[in-house]
């Protein structure tokens, strides 16, 4: 499993955010670059602004914000020269140069997620999560959030069903407030991330087997977001195709050999 090289963390103070970031990355302070994206302050809006820091392992460029300096809100401090090259090094896609709304939308999504879960009796931290998969160019960019805290199993539910429902609510609430379509992906303690990583491995193994044997293989039934991952992973595979069949909880992906002569 690949370690993350950069995280953004929100917390009550800069020090606390940095501490949490180091914990997430499994690094020590002298192995990382720290950027303070927002200082804690009391805002008129009723909610105190928390500190937001981006902590990047040295040698891995941090994600460009694609924003002119002098913007309001989470304006980044000038970055050290070392982090100038693009993020290709980390193997993660660079976010397209989106206008400022991207950051406002992210901040709003974080706040709504935290507030919703707070009313439900969960004290959580919400952080940004980096994508593991290349974003689908046909889809709008997704705000990826991870929820951290103690005893959050209930937020995931069987096969991630609770998480899917909560994600749906957060999407509705965020989009009602923004008045524009933005997609929010919600994770809890990296649950979806881990599922994603194991699905990538599974899809690739099964694809190889299908290519070798020439026989189709059906995977176990999976929720929609997981089936989608399998389709995405194998979309460009020259040897196999994927197709879902079945209804509801029994819907599953079959990986089949691609017809000869139709290779990529």
């Amino acid at each position, binding site marked *: 499993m690949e370690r993350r090289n950069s995280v953004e963390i929100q917390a009550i103070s800069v020090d606390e955010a940095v501490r949490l970031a180091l914990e997430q990355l499994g690094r020590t302070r002298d192995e990382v670059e720290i950027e303070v994206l927002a200082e804690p302050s009391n805002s008129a809006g009723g909610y105190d602004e928390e500190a937001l820091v981006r902590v990047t392992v040295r040698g891995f460029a941090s994600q460009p914000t694609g924003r002119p300096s002098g913007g309001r809100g989470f304006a980044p401090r000038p970055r050290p020269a070392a982090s100038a090259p693009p993020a290709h090094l980390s193997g993660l896609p660079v976010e397209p140069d989106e206008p400022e709304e991207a950051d406002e939308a992210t901040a709003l999504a974080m706040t709504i997620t935290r507030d*919703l879960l707070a*009313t439900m*009796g969960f004290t959580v931290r919400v952080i940004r999560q980096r994508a593991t998969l290349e974003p689908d160019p046909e889809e709008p960019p997704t705000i990826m959030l991870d929820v951290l805290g103690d005893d959050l199993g*209930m937020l995931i539910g069987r096969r991630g069903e609770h998480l899917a*429902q909560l994600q749906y*609510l957060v999407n*509705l609430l965020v989009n009602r407030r923004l008045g524009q379509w933005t997609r929010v992906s919600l994770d809890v303690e990296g649950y979806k991330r881990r599922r994603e990583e194991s699905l990538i491995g599974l899809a690739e193994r099964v694809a190889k087997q299908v290519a070798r044997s020439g026989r189709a293989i059906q995977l176990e039934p999976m929720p929609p977001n997981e089936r989608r991952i399998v389709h995405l992973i194998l979309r460009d595979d020259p040897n196999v195709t994927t197709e879902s069949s079945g209804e509801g909880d029994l819907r599953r992906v079959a990986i089949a050999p691609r017809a000869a002569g139709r290779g990529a």
Partner: protein
Amino acid sequence: MEQLERVVQFIATGLVDQPEEVQVDSRRHGANVNLHLRVAPDELGRVIGRQGRIAKAMRTAVGIAAARQGVRANLEIES
């Protein structure tokens, strides 16, 4: 069971155009909490959704919050 009401209130007011029309009340019967959500009649769709999808998600959220308190929640939506 004020907390469960707050869950419904938070979600419903975030979904409608007339948050002032949102009313939530609850009654407890033993380990069961019956919640009633009322919104402006023309905004019922906003809290129910196509094929009840939003209502279902709201019930999941309230259900999780209830389970955390060791109770069961039942949410009814009316205009």
